[in-house]
């Protein structure tokens, strides 16, 4: 109540200052006139009376000023004065101010950046109505097709049965995304490869998206022949058609066939929802054979489903498990195959999840280090200022005034730090978006999360207030006389505050060591990952992709002819050493094929031999420079009419022919007898081949995995799997990039409607593979560097302070004959002790983080002793250097002069 009335009075006073002043004038005038009238009543002359009244009253202006102050109107003026004084004080110690502001900015900036990104990547609800009902269904098989540890999509017939038999879902849709040749038929005319979403009518309905213009697909349009319609994204509508209102009915050529645009969809589907790349065009899901019983083993479709309201994920999972078990009993091809359901929102970061957790841990450490550093800086500054405070107290400044001034100073510091932090966060998010658009397209649209900014700012503010003001209270309570008596020496800081500072430095050391160890481990891991041999010659190698659409390349013979022509033309170009049209090359193959190997009889589906499979031409080995170990290479004489031949890798040899010579052995490409489906109904291979050669292993299951068994055949001899999707790998004499336009020209001479797409060097493909590791490593390394820098500032500050404090004592020691080396050691020992304790704690911390780290490392143990020892040694070395700089000052002391000073 009292506080309220004061506040109201103060507020009122400030808001109505002018009115108050005039009222005050009126009141004082009344007083003077009333007094003068009384004097006149007592017989004094009018003129005399007014003069006496004013005289006896005293200074009117001084009274007014005092009145204003009494009413608190002077608050603003005082605040401005404090502000002015704070700025001056901060400017006077630029070192302290810079370091404190940067410390704050770093803590606030790093945390705001990372948490904003994490929020956008993992936490924010999806942009769809009732998005928590959205799930995906996966098919889980006992390890066999899960080379990457990722669950695979189910087959269409299985999904149809899930939908019919379960009670948990409103609807389930199967869809896919394909690379297709797209020609908008506009003036530019160049065909492009784009990813096209092949989606059923229900796809947009499940997501709850309505078209901006036009209509959704109908069920009927999922039939082949009726599917020549397309929906385009609003982005494409704006960029390609300038938002043309008459867009409906216009045609796009996809794979050489015209599709009519029937809808424009809003840009709300995040890129990760569609496998592969972000689709801007969708056409109906028209695969009649996908639904036939013979396709029950054809897994890998993407799914989207919406749970019925009120159905939990666990209920849906239980429901699906029962159905999957029933299907496994009914269909041999489903034996050992289960189903798993995951919330759509949880599938968005995939393999990056542990990295994001690591980054969260790292920025939290940075925030802690920043706060500790700030505390340390403020403690040092305020203990150095105790004398100044004491002087001001002695000159009559009240405790309230001193505290208020320190408060203003702390606030100014925090605000400036926060502002710089905000700038850092903006820069950080912008560079995140640039660094990682391929794998995390969501990052391009991340804005600053203001809640995080506010939180980190408040944490730093609390720290500054705690450590900025606590000494002020202690300081002002200190005996003034004591503080002043310290004379020219810096004011005391008691042993307890020194201990606090030591603990703070030890904490900083420990936390920076954890960051240092983490960053070193990641760097070593990434070096291992990228420097390992792929099993081919990696340099001067270019990869490009083509797609020959069935409308013009209906049979395998045409495809073979086109590919052979194209490769021959490319080989003939100057600067090209060799070229091969192939689907097989490192680091990822991804086409896993079931095999029937004589001598390997199997009855259970999970025992069926399988290998990485692919088709190539006869130049495959020579172009990639894969060594031939035994037997012979493909030859020009291996043709459509000659018996099919195959090359196997050493790993294939070891696994399936451990004791025999594989050369000359026949194996069947395709599932064993009991799973075989009538020829003509399946889309996978079904051919007997003779092994003619064993070749060196190369990376075919990703950089982080050892090579899988590999079998490679000639596309000319395998019409069943001679698809229109082909890649060309070109070996050049020099930098391959300048050759790209000429290669493209050669392609367009053969067919001007086939785009030359996704052109990259092998080095780029390898780097793309390690993209997310690079991203994490780069961030973690910069955090480690920042943490270390802060820790160095901390230890430097504490040691300098100690040296200043102990100058007297050290001078006495030197005067009494202690060698300067001994004295220097006394100083260094202090720094070393703190660093050693910090390092020990840090190593324990890094040890306990091994489970999190282990998942991110390749070829390096998360408790790698070399890294641990190296990081600890580095930290100690840095600590010694930081302590040596102030330590050297001791050596320059002239003891005689020093002692004379007192």
């Amino acid at each position, binding site marked *: 109540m009292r506080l309220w009335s*004061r506040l109201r009075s103060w507020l009122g006073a400030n808001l109505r200052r002018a009115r108050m002043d005039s009222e005050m004038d009126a009141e004082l005038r*009344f007083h003077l006139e009333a007094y003068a009238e009384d004097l006149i009543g007592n017989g004094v002359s009018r003129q005399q009376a007014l003069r006496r009244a004013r005289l006896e*009253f005293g200074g009117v202006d*001084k009274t007014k000023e005092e009145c204003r102050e*009494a009413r608190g109107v002077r608050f603003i003026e005082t605040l401005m004065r404090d502000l002015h004084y704070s700025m001056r004080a901060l400017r006077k110690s630029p070192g302290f101010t810079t370091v404190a502001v940067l410390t704050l900015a770093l803590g606030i900036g790093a945390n705001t950046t990372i948490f904003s990104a994490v929020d956008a990547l993992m936490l924010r609800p999806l942009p769809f109505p009732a998005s928590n009902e959205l799930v995906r269904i996966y098919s889980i098989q006992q390890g066999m097709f899960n080379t990457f540890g990722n669950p695979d999509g189910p087959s269409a017939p299985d999904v149809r049965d899930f939908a019919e038999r379960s009670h948990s879902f409103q609807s389930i849709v199967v869809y896919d995304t394909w690379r297709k040749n797209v020609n908008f038929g506009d003036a530019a005319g160049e065909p492009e490869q784009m990813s096209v979403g092949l989606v059923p009518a229900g796809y947009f309905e499940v997501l709850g998206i309505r078209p901006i213009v036009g209509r959704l697909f109908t069920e009927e349009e999922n039939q082949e022949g009726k599917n020549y319609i397309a929906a385009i994204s609003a982005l494409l509508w704006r960029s390609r058609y300038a938002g043309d209102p008459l867009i409906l009915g216009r045609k796009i050529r996809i794979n050489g066939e015209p599709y009519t645009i029937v809808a424009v969809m809003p840009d709300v589907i995040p890129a990760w929802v569609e496998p592969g790349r972000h689709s801007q065009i969708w056409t109906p899901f028209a695969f009649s054979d996908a639904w036939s019983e013979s396709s029950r083993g054809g897994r890998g479709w993407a799914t989207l489903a919406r749970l019925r309201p009120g159905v939990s994920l666990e209920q849906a999972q239980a429901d699906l498990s029962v159905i999957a078990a029933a299907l496994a009993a009914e269909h041999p091809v489903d034996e050992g195959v289960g189903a798993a359901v995951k919330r759509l929102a949880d599938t968005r970061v995939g393999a990056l999840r542990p990295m994001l957790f690591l980054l969260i841990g790292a920025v939290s450490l940075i925030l802690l280090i920043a706060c500790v550093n700030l505390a340390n800086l403020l403690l040092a500054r305020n203990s150095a200022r105790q004398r100044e405070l004491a002087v001001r107290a002695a000159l009559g400044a009240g405790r309230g005034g001193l505290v208020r001034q320190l408060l203003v100073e702390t606030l100014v510091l925090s605000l400036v730090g926060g502002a710089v932090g905000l700038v850092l966060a903006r820069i950080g998010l912008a560079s995140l978006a640039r660094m990682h658009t391929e794998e995390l397209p969501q990052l391009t649209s991340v804005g600053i999360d203001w809640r995080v900014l506010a939180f980190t700012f408040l944490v730093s503010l609390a720290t500054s207030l705690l450590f900025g003001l606590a000494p002020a209270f202690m300081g002002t309570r200190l005996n003034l006389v004591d503080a002043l008596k310290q004379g020219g020496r810096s004011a005391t800081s008691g042993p307890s505050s020194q201990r606090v500072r030591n603990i703070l430095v030890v904490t900083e050391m420990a936390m920076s060591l954890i960051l240092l160890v983490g960053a070193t481990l990641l760097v070593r891991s990434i070096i291992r990952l990228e420097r390992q041999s792929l099993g081919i010659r990696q340099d001067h190698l270019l990869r490009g992709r083509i797609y020959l659409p069935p409308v013009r390349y209906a049979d395998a013979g045409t495809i073979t002819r086109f590919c052979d022509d194209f490769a021959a033309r490319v080989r003939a170009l100057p600067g090209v050493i060799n070229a091969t049209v192939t689907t097989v090359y490192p680091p990822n193959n991804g086409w896993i094929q079931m095999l029937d190997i004589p001598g390997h009889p199997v009855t259970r589906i999970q025992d069926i031999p399988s290998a990485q499979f692919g088709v190539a031409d006869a130049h495959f080995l020579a172009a990639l420079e894969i060594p031939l170990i035994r037997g012979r290479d493909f030859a020009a004489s291996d043709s459509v009419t000659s018996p099919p031949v195959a090359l196997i890798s050493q790993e294939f040899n070891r696994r399936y022919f451990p004791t025999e010579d594989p050369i000359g052995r026949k194996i069947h490409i395709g599932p064993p007898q009991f799973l075989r489906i009538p020829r003509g109904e399946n889309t996978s291979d079904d051919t007997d081949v003779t092994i003619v050669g064993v070749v060196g292993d190369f990376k075919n299951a990703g950089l982080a995995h050892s090579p899988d068994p590999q079998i490679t055949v000639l596309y000319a001899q395998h019409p069943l799997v001679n698809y229109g999707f082909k890649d060309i790998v070109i070996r050049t004499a020099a930098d391959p990039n300048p050759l790209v336009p000429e290669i493209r020209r050669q392609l367009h001479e053969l067919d001007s409607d086939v785009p030359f797409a996704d052109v990259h060097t092998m080095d780029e493909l390898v780097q793309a593979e390690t993209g997310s590791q690079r991203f994490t490593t780069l961030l973690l390394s910069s955090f480690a560097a920042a943490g270390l820098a802060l820790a160095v500032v901390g230890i430097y500050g504490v040691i300098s302070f100690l040296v200043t404090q102990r100058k007297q004592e050290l001078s006495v020691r030197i005067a009494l004959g202690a060698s300067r080396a001994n004295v220097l050691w006394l100083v260094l020992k202090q720094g070393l002790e703190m660093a050693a304790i910090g390092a020990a704690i840090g190593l324990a911390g890094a040890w306990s983080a091994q489970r999190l780290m282990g998942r991110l490392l390749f070829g390096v143990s998360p408790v790698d002793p070399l890294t641990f020892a190296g990081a600890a040694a580095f930290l100690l070395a840095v600590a010694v250097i930081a302590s040596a700089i102030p330590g050297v000052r001791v050596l320059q002391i002239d003891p005689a002069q020093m002692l004379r000073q007192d």
Partner: protein
Amino acid sequence: MTKQIDLLQGTLDMLILKAVSLGPLHGYGILLRIQQISKDRLEIQQGSLYPALYRLEHQGWIASEWGESENRRKAKYYRLTTAGKRRFQAEAEKWNRMADVIAGILRTTPEQV
């Protein structure tokens, strides 16, 4: 004229509270009232009265409003608030105790020590 005593530090506030406790008064009236009840034995610096009034008002012990003076002029009148009443009683009690103690000390004769 009887000899006037300078006001003791801190007593002005109490005197003002006493003065307005007898009824609302304007600033000049408060001055007159204090002089009247002290029988002109207290000297009050006129200029120091107003800062004290503003301070007391800011603290919430007294409240003010504009009214009409005896000779029909606009004047600002001060009255005691409830909080001010309590404050005045506490202050007065403290003052009386203090005065007793000091008077007792001063009355002490050498024999009594």
